[in-house]
């Protein structure tokens, strides 16, 4: 789960990281008042879940509260990579002597957290990793002992010459690690970590991603989710226990299992069409989940056919069939439905579908080809069988 910079800054502050004061504004007027409180000269930053906000025009300097108002008015409501800016963060403008990067990620290969620092701060770290990997210094952390002092000092020496600054940086890295662990983050990043002209280090940006699987341990963090950052259908799907990602194509897919769902999308593309979504109904699916899945898919106006691909294991095919029948009872379905069912209780499922004149196949290739054919012809549900 992604959270906003202003939320990440608060987490960092709670763990003793040096983050300058800030304010959040949702209107130009609030921004002007906030700038006045912060001393007049401020940076105004769009709060959206996209990288490269600066380059996209979502970060601007303002010399006076009046200018902050104008800048905020321009940024609020702006669309950055498809997301509308609803909030801006204001922080005092600072003089920067140097910029560095510090971040922690979960490293899949070593199965441990890895801290990375670089003197090339304030820029896209992936670009640094690609083009000048020698400018990134890494340490692998043993989760049982945490970031050891000598590791933190070593990273500090790779960035600074002055011993005072090295010590300060080491403290920052250790606190960053504490924050990372405390919130079950999958990423915690300071970019940039700046030195002021007097040598003091400050974290003037903050990014934290939280492991969705750990949210049950942190209900207060689960509340930080910004529903406006996701498509409304994705929020609804999450609440119903479905995993859904909206895409741009016309074939709506309802599948059990993430891998099979992706393979179904790929097969649609293989046969020359585009999937409208990724949707995994999960393991033990009840009919209600199927109804919810159909509602979500049908809320997408681009959908021209609905394709079910169910390989019953834990999922019972008859549960899915019952869900389809219930959905057809409850809503007007004006696009064709094609169904592939195989595995647990397949026979019962086919009988249920037979009763409402919905044919089903047991081949994945066949159902995908059929969906594409019907989407192009746009036959209403069930008509093909009557």
């Amino acid at each position: 789960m992604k959270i906003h910079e202003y939320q990440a800054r608060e987490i960092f502050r709670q763990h003793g990281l040096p983050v300058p004061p800030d304010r959040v504004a949702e209107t130009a007027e609030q921004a002007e008042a906030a700038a006045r409180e912060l001393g007049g000269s401020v940076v105004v930053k769009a709060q959206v879940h996209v990288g490269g906000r600066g380059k996209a025009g979502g970060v601007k300097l303002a010399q006076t509260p009046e200018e902050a108002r104008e800048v905020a008015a321009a940024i609020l409501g702006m669309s950055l990579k498809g997301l509308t800016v609803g909030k801006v963060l204001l922080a005092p403008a600072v003089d920067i002597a140097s910029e560095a990067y510090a971040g922690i990620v979960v490293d899949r290969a070593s199965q441990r957290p890895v801290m990375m620092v670089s003197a090339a701060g304030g820029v896209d770290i992936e670009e640094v990793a690609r083009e000048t990997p020698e400018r990134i210094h890494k340490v692998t952390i043993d989760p049982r002992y945490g970031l050891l002092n000598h590791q933190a000092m070593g990273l500090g020496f790779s960035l600074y010459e002055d011993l005072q600054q090295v010590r300060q940086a080491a403290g920052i890295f250790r606190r960053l690690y504490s924050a990372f662990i405390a919130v079950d983050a999958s990423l915690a990043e300071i970019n940039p970590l700046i030195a002021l002209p007097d040598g003091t280090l400050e974290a003037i940006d903050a990014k934290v991603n939280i492991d969705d699987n750990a949210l049950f341990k942190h209900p207060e963090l689960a509340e930080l989710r910004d529903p406006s950052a996701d498509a409304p259908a994705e929020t609804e799907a999450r609440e119903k226990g479905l995993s859904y990602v909206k895409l741009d194509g016309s074939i709506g897919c309802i599948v059990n299992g993430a891998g099979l769902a992706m393979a179904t999308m790929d097969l649609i593309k293989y046969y020359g069409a585009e999937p409208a979504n990724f949707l995994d109904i999960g393991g033990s699916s009840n009919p209600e989940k199927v109804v919810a899945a159909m509602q979500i898919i049908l809320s997408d106006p681009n959908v021209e056919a609905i394709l079910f691909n169910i390989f019953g294991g834990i999922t019972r095919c008859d549960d899915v069939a019952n869900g389809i029948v219930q959905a057809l009872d409850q809503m007007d379905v004006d696009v064709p439905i094609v169904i592939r069912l195989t595995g647990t209780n397949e026979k019962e499922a086919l009988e249920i579908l037979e009763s409402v004149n919905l044919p089903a196949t047991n081949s994945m290739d066949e159902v995908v080809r059929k969906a594409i054919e019907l989407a192009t012809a746009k036959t209403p549900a069930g008509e093909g069988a009557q």
Partner: protein
Amino acid sequence: MSILIDRSTKLAVQGITGRDGSFHARRMSDYGTQVVAGVVPGKGGQLFDDSIPIFDTVAMAVQETGANATVIYVPPRFAADAIYEAADAGVELIVAITEGIPVLEMMRVMAFVRERGARIVGPNCPGLITPGESKIGILPGNICTPGKVGVVSRSGTLTYEVIHHLTANGLGQSTCVGIGGDPIVGTSFIDCLEQFEADPDTEAVVMIGEIGGTDEQEAARYVDSEMSTPVVGFIAGQTAPPGRRMGHAGAIISGSEGTAAEKMTAFRDHGIAVAERPADIVRLVEGALG
């Protein structure tokens, strides 16, 4: 022959009285797996289905029944502790079906389990099966048939799809392993490939990957340098957009890393035949077997 499990494997089921645990304990037992014990704290001394003894702790189950493998069906918040307990009891193979274990928790678990010399398969996996001998987990036994093809996969139902195609075309399996869809799993592709290479009865391997991470790329290098057994590959997620989690916690393209295209290229560069769609796997396996 097979890898990891066979008819001599003695299994304890942690969470045997729960909804999923009880259902699958019966399925496994019906399939022929030696389910020798259940473990549920507070229910020690009872019998599951009038036949399988339940113990309060894994240690007692191991001591009384000689269980050398365990399968974990307990909910995410208790799953890490269940794994610690199994490793401390000296169980060699721990299969964690549970989905949703926090990744930082799994890091600590992995370090702990390694020190005790145990192996974890999963978490968030369908388990494994040696057709005709033993199955641990939730894979449907009826779609498998004994044979010479090893299957290793990060997915669940997609694995069933592939096994279904193999069986329908007369290609039986030596062992099928679902390694799980999380960023951190106990048994990697390479761990399974190493075992398949050493197994004289596995004559070809199907490796099913998906977007996210670089495990498939590392596995491809391993296949190239260490294996003589032919490997056929498939990658799910060619149409997945970057930065979005596609169901599995591990299935996410970050930056330019972990795309299906990158993985398919790595496969091809290292001599792995790549299937464009699941149905093509059959033809490629037949070609590999000659």
